[in-house]
Structure formats: structure tokens, C-alpha cells
């Protein structure tokens, strides 16, 4: 029974999320929106890189930056997507209380809402990478991609991001007025500490341990290695670790953060119920 409830919660939430994400306009404008936004973000970095290196896109640093930025779209989409569902349902649509009294499993429902953002995020990631390969000579050879490593890493990473999103959703449940900032601020902070667009060695010494503790650091490194192996391994940050060692660390940290996230959500959910925060609207 629990399994079917969970699956129904997830499936319906994912469908609802997809409708909310996509049906606000006609398909053409939706396509433009899905393409222009991620490409502009990537183009800022490309222009910065181009100015300083005077157009030397052959350097190993370019695919490092480009692919890191492209896959980081998932962090904003999945992690923030799960936590944003609380704001959307509680403040905007004012339906969170109905979700709580419906025969669904709330954490799974929130994860389902994140699944819709995973789909829109995937569109952005694919378009960004294709643009890089076609127009900017990102050295991605289909025959050389380690598909198994890529698939496993992507799956583990998405689950890890969804669990982090659940942690933020819990915090969001107990927060008023500034809950919209929580996901964005966390994603922006992880952008710095995950070595998404620069190797961690650029950070001051005292900040680097934060980066080494973040699962996103290992996730992005493995994704780069699986796609452009020899290029990604050129940077000293994690060069002493083999792919399997990094995968092990990623799994361990994902498990750790997953357990913490579930516990935090459980505690926050109880607090929100006790204090009557489930249907609180602040009009912010």
C-alpha cells in the first residue's frame, strides 16, 4: 500500500509540476525561454574566457568551465525545484494544506515536483552542451564517452540533489517571507564551493575544505571525467583520486546528506504542523 501511495504521489506530482512549468505560454515561447536563459548564462562565461585567453578555446580549462556550468543547471533545477514547490503551493496556489490532507506522501510529492524541473533542466543541459560541441569546439567525442560511469554518476547526482532539495523544503516549511531566497542562495553558494566553473585550488586555502565536503564537487568531477576524461583529469584538485575512489566518495556523501535531509525534513514538518505553518500565507 505504501509503495503504491508513494508511486501515485510521485507520478501525479511530476505531472502537475510539468504542467505548471510548461503550460504558462505557447510552445514556441516556452522553447525560446528554455533555450535563451541557459545559453545566456553559458555565454557570459564564454565571453569572459574568450576575452582573457584571446579566443584560445583549446585549453583544458575551457571544457572544465563549460561542462561544469552546463551540468550545474541541474543543481538549480532539481534542488531548488523541490524546495520551491513549498513556496508555490503554500503562498501562490494556496494548495499545500489540501496536499497535506490528501492520501499522498508529502516528501515523495515534493520530490515529484522536482522531477518536472529535472525534465526542463535536462532540456537546458542538452542544448547548452550541444551548442558547446557544435560551435565552441568542446572536445566531446561520443565514442570516447564512458557511458556507464556517466549514467551512474548522473543518476546518483540527481538523487543526491533531490534529497538536498528535500532538506531545503523542510527549512522552507518553517520559514516565512524569505523562503524564496533559500534555494537560490544555497545553489549560488554551492556554485562557488563545488568547483563548478573554476578548480577548487583557486579558492583561498581556508575555504577549500568546504568544497571537499560537498558531494556536488565529486559529482561534477566525475561527469567531466566520464565525458572528456583526459582533459578533466589535468587539474590538480582531485587528480590523485581514481574514478572509482571519487564514485565511492560521492556515494558516501550522498548517503550522508540523504539521511540528514530526511531527518531535517521530518523535524521541520513536525514543527510546521505544530505551529500552524502549513497554510500560512504572508503575501510576499
Amino acid at each position: 500500500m505504501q509503495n503504491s501511495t508513494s508511486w501515485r504521489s510521485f507520478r501525479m506530482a511530476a505531472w502537475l509540476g510539468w504542467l505548471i512549468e510548461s503550460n504558462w505560454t505557447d510552445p514556441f515561447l516556452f522553447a525560446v525561454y528554455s533555450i535563451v536563459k541557459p545559453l545566456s548564462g553559458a555565454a557570459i562565461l564564454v565571453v569572459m574566457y574568450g576575452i582573457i585567453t584571446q579566443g584560445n578555446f583549446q585549453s583544458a580549462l575551457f571544457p572544465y568551465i563549460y561542462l561544469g556550468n552546463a551540468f550545474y543547471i541541474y543543481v538549480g533545477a532539481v534542488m531548488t525545484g523541490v524546495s520551491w514547490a513549498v513556496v508555490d503551493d503554500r503562498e501562490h496556489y494556496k494548495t499545500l494544506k489540501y496536499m497535506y490532507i490528501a492520501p499522498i506522501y508529502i516528501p515523495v510529492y515534493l520530490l515529484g515536483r522536482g522531477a518536472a524541473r529535472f525534465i526542463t533542466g535536462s532540456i537546458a543541459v542538452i542544448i547548452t552542451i550541444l551548442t558547446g560541441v557544435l560551435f565552441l569546439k568542446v572536445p566531446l567525442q561520443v565514442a570516447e564517452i564512458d557511458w556507464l560511469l556517466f549514467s551512474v554518476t548522473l543518476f546518483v547526482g540527481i538523487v543526491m540533489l533531490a534529497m538536498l532539495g528535500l532538506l531545503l523544503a523542510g527549512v522552507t516549511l518553517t520559514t516565512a517571507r524569505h523562503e524564496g531566497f533559500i534555494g537560490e542562495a544555497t545553489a549560488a553558494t554551492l556554485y562557488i564551493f563545488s568547483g563548478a566553473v573554476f578548480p577548487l585550488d583557486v579558492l583561498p586555502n581556508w575555504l577549500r575544505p568546504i568544497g571537499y565536503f560537498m558531494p556536488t564537487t565529486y559529482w561534477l568531477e566525475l561527469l567531466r571525467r566520464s565525458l572528456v576524461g583526459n582533459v578533466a583529469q589535468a587539474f590538480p584538485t582531485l587528480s590523485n583520486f581514481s574514478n572509482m575512489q571519487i564514485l565511492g566518495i560521492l556515494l558516501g556523501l550522498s548517503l550522508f546528506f540523504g539521511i540528514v535531509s530526511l531527518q531535517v525534513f521530518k523535524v521541520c514538518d513536525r514543527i510546521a504542523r505544530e505551529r500552524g505553518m502549513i497554510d500560512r500565507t504572508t503575501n510576499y
Partner: protein
Amino acid sequence: MNAVSSKYSRKDTGWRLFLKTIIARAYPRVIGQQREISWVLFEVVMPMLAVCSYVFVYRALKAPEEYIGFVVMGGAMTAFWMNVLWSMSSQLYWEKETGNLALYIMAPNSMMAILLGMALGGMVATAMRAVAVTVFGTLMFAVEFEVTSYLQLFAVFMLAMIALYGLGMMMASAFLLFGREAWHMANLAQEPIFLASGFYFPIKSLPFWVAAGASIIPLTLGMDAMRQLVFPSGFRLGFLDVRTEIIILAILSVVFVAVSKFLLAYVEKLAVREGRITESRR
């Protein structure tokens, strides 16, 4: 009878009402927003996180130090663009969603005064956040400034602000007609504008016609001129001569504020006719 003739019942009309409306709408922007300390914190921290990311990218690329200053200035100016986008352009849409818009239109005041009040209050409140970002960025990354003309710097900043908030007033009218798409439209106008306006790199790096087209956004020329005026190597990386940029910004200021007045009147009439003032399409 006494109550009617007392000072509390005096009716303000004309320019006095116009002025009072501006102050009344600016008040919550300047005072109200400062009361939510967590918002102030987030609005300073968020641009700072973007500044840190781009600074570290430049450091990884071993870029010349003046680029770090460019990023800090760009980060500070994002506060103004975000304010125009989310608290000017989208504001009438939010007011419609929360039910205040109909009250604004019913009240015997000018909608133009309301927009001016929003602009004035937003400008002052955002300036505080922009100063905070500049100070933190300067201290964290040891940015060095060398102002060549304070007068020109003041003129550029003020004209850029007038033109920018004039643009915001124009966009507010357009957003009045939006439904659910308003949020997405505002969201869409972030990264592409950061790119086209050169928030994190000199606009001169883009092809000439792209930079010229992007100059319709007042911050493009405003930032370019300010970078030329405050950084030693700024003139080398400038898009146009500072005097030319000042003249263009002055023209943009007049055009945007004037057009916003006509656009607001037109769109308000259209929205009333089509019954969009009280609609809420979630």
C-alpha cells in the same frame, strides 16, 4: 461641520496630491524594506555570491586585476536591474495578484505618481544595497579605484538611474497585461541582459552592433562610462567616449519617462476595457 473643515479633511489636489502620492508610494520602498532585515541580508549576499564566482573565474584565468573591479561594479549594478525587473516591471502585476491594483486605479491619484514613487523609493533603497556590495567586494578583493572626474561620474550615475527607472515604468505598463507569464518574463530578462549589457566584462568585447543594440538598456552605457571613469585602464576598454555616452543616456532618460506616461495611460485604458484589472490567472 468642524470635522469637515479641519486640517485632516483637507483635500489635496493637483501637484500637491501628485507629490504626496510619490512620497506615499516611495515610503514602503525606503522604510518598509529596511524593516525586513533578512531581505536586506539576502539582497546583499546574493549579488556577492555571483561576484565571488566570477572573480574566481577571472583568477583561474589569470586575468588582469582591473577585471576584478569590473565584476564588483557589475555585481553592484545587478541590484538595480533586479529591482527594476522585480519591483518595478512586475509590480503592477503583483498588485493585481494581491488585489491592490483596483484600489490604485479607484483612488483619485495619478498612476504616474505611483510609478514615480515606486521608482524613487526603489532607487534609494537599492542604492544602499549596491553600496554594500561595492564596499564588501572592494574589501574582499582589494579593488583599486582611480576616479578621473567626479562630476561626470555623478552625471552618468544619475542619468543611468533616471533612464533605467524610466524603462522600468514603461515595462510596468506592459507587465500589467501579463498573466502567469509575468514571472517567467521577468526571469527571462536576467541572464540575457547580464550578457548583453556586459555586467561582468567590458561591453567593448562584444561585436559593435550587438553592443550598440544593448545600449537601449541604460545600464550598458552607464556601466561602461563608470568603468572608464573609475578604473585606470577603463578608457582603454571603453565602448564609446564618456561624453557621447552621457548625451545618449540623457536622451534615453527623456524618451523613457515620456513614453512611459503615454504607455501607462494607453495600457490602463486597455486593461480596464478588457477587464484585466481584477483578473488573477494563476
